[in-house]
């Protein structure tokens, strides 16, 4: 337990502090991406770092995801510890060849001669009215790829503490920062440090149903749990944290306590992470289930621009509450 005084900090600041700390601790660490230098990062994460560390270590890149992600992979193979920022997960599709055919496979293809200690950070998710080319949650696609580790920090402690172990990992690690979380503000111990990047975490204990969420849907699940508590339904909220490899044990242990599960996932339902989690529960805890696993996902449409349509397309606490009520069989007055 930390004894340092807590300080008020935002999610954005927590990530910046993590980058600063990594750069101060290890000369091999550098940051590269579109507008990360002079502009301070598209979401303001790297503001001030150029002045502190100079253009050698805070590098603006051309608008070519394939090129700079590939450069990052090469640097990692060459012994550096690159942090590559991709503006949004939508744009990482331009670098998908580098991510999948190189980052995820070179260790295997080289017979273990090369490690790829690369960290790829990217913003994900909707809710900010930036429409269908900047808003999607494609974590599920990337979680399909063996050889990658995927992290989804949803708390200040994780925003602050996941980067160091990600850089220490000899394999490529992708960190998804949900755009709606950057302004999340709260208290964090001044000396908050590394966290584990293996396990899921229970963010709220409960006995009646498990709400499984990650990244941007964690606040959704917590607020649904809050509302359900007023009905006397105690929802357990499980934050996946690590999207690949999934912490099956935490998921199954929670379901064995509650016997019901709702997966809250901002990705599209078909072929989603929610589908994967649901399938694993069915495979490993079928005889513990008192109701079919339910999913609350985004509507299967390109993310709309108008605010009311965007909100309607996203998983909302009310939809989660409705799912739980239906599942628990809240009596309806006939």
């Amino acid at each position, binding site marked *: 337990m930390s004894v340092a005084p807590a300080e008020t900090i935002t999610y954005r600041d927590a990530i910046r502090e993590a980058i600063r700390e990594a750069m101060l601790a290890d000369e091999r660490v550098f940051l590269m991406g579109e507008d990360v230098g002079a502009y301070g990062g598209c979401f303001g994460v790297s503001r001030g770092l150029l002045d502190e560390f100079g253009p050698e270590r805070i590098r603006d890149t051309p608008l070519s995801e394939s090129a700079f992600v590939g450069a990052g992979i090469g640097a990692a193979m060459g012994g550096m510890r690159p942090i590559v920022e991709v503006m949004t997960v939508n744009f990482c599709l331009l670098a998908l060849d580098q991510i999948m055919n190189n980052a995820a496979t070179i260790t295997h293809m080289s017979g273990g001669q090369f490690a790829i200690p690369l960290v790829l950070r990217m913003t994900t998710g909707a809710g900010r009215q930036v429409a269908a080319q900047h808003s999607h949650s494609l974590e599920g696609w990337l979680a399909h790829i063996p050889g990658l580790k995927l992290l989804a920090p949803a708390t200040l402690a994780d925003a602050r503490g996941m980067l160091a172990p990600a850089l220490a990992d000899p394999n490529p690690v992708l960190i998804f920062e949900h755009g709606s979380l950057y302004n999340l503000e709260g208290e964090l111990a001044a000396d908050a440090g590394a966290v584990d990047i293996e396990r899921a975490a229970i963010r709220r204990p409960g006995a*009646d149903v498990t709400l499984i969420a990650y990244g941007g849907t964690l606040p959704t699940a917590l607020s649904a749990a809050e509302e359900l508590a007023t009905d006397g339904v105690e929802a357990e909220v499980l934050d996946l944290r690590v999207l690949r490899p999934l912490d099956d044990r935490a998921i199954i242990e929670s379901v064995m306590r509650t016997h019901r599960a709702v997966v809250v996932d901002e990705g599209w339902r078909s072929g989603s992470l929610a589908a994967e989690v649901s399938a694993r529960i069915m495979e490993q805890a079928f005889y513990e289930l008192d109701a079919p696993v339910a999913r609350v996902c985004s509507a299967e449409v390109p993310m709309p621009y108008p605010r009311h349509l965007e909100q309607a397309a996203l998983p909302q606490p009310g939809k989660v509450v409705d799912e739980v009520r239906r599942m628990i069989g809240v009596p309806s007055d*006939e």
Partner: protein
Amino acid sequence: MPSLGADMEAGTVLDWYVKPGDTVKRGDIVALVDTSKAEIEVEIFDGGVIDELLVPVGERVPVGTVLATLHPVPAEVPVPVPVGPPAPETPAPPTPATAVTLPPAPPSAPVPVAAAPAGTNHRLRVSPLARRAAAQLGVDLSVVSGSGPNGAITKSDVERARPAGQPAPPVERPATPAPPVERPTTPAPAREPGDRQAAMREAIGALMARSKREIPHYYLQLEIDIGRALDWLRDANLQRPMNERLLPSALLLSAVARAAAEMPEMNGFWTDGAFRPGGGVHLGVAISLRGGGLIAPALHDADKKSLDDIMAGVRDLVQRARAGRLRSSEMSDPTLTVTNLGERGVDLVHGVIYPPQVALVGFGAVRERPWAIDGMLGVRPVVVATLAADHRASDGHAGGRFLTLIERRLQKPETL
């Protein structure tokens, strides 16, 4: 063919669950009958050995027609009861030629097998956890009613069904007959949804016309302050898990049932020019069906049931009514009907009595109203209770006393 309600004139045998030689006991479900309102499971009144099935599947016969004959069992001879799907000995090859061995098809075309909706099969919906719990506790799932999504049986349903006095399973047929095999041998007559709607409308119309034609109704109404009852209910529900919470309607039903036990002249039948008290308080619970129509099956011995049992009983009736799986005794036994139109937002109900019953109690919506007590004005939740009663069987004086008894019960919710 039993009369499954005063409005039924004929019924169609959809399925036999027994065959000649089977041993049955009182209360066993032997057949499935389609009235114009619903598919009803027919219970048998006497035990014995089935001799002959006289009415084949698919045939429509008038009420009173003998459906099957039965030999009484001489003594307590333990005859092994055959278990198995109704016709497993003659599995139908998948060719239409076997149809010639079947009873004559009804005028309407039989339902093509492939078109049989999946929802018509008999497989119980049981959660995996509940199925495991039932195996551990030795609970027969075929007698458990489900409270989960779409009527699925959950673990808590199984646990509720476990306590002492667990009734012997009344159903001897296997819990999970294989419907895909069973279907081809029993081409039930096609009844288009539209047909059923129309037939039900017709049946309700005939019965209600008869009620208004024959029964001299009188009407009374009483506004009841149910603040105390709702407060009590809220406190009681705080102690309960979500799925075991009580609804206000359980209080209303219990109050009516207990008042009816004290007022036998409200609880029974008018037949052959005279009043006949009901043997027990079997409340007919008016349930509106999806897609229209109405059915009022019996909640047996409601005056002796706890609030939990009333809740569970009503939930079970609603689910089975909507699934078209009511039992014959539930259709013919109601002694007094209760209709609650509060959810529809109306203030009060002037009901039409369900012949041959002699009374109907209606409730409107619970509304907050200005309410004066002891010279002070306050805001209280109020519900209007109405009584429609048969003047041949009772007078307004008795009717008034009945409504007052209901009110008194609702003032003492702890006695319900």
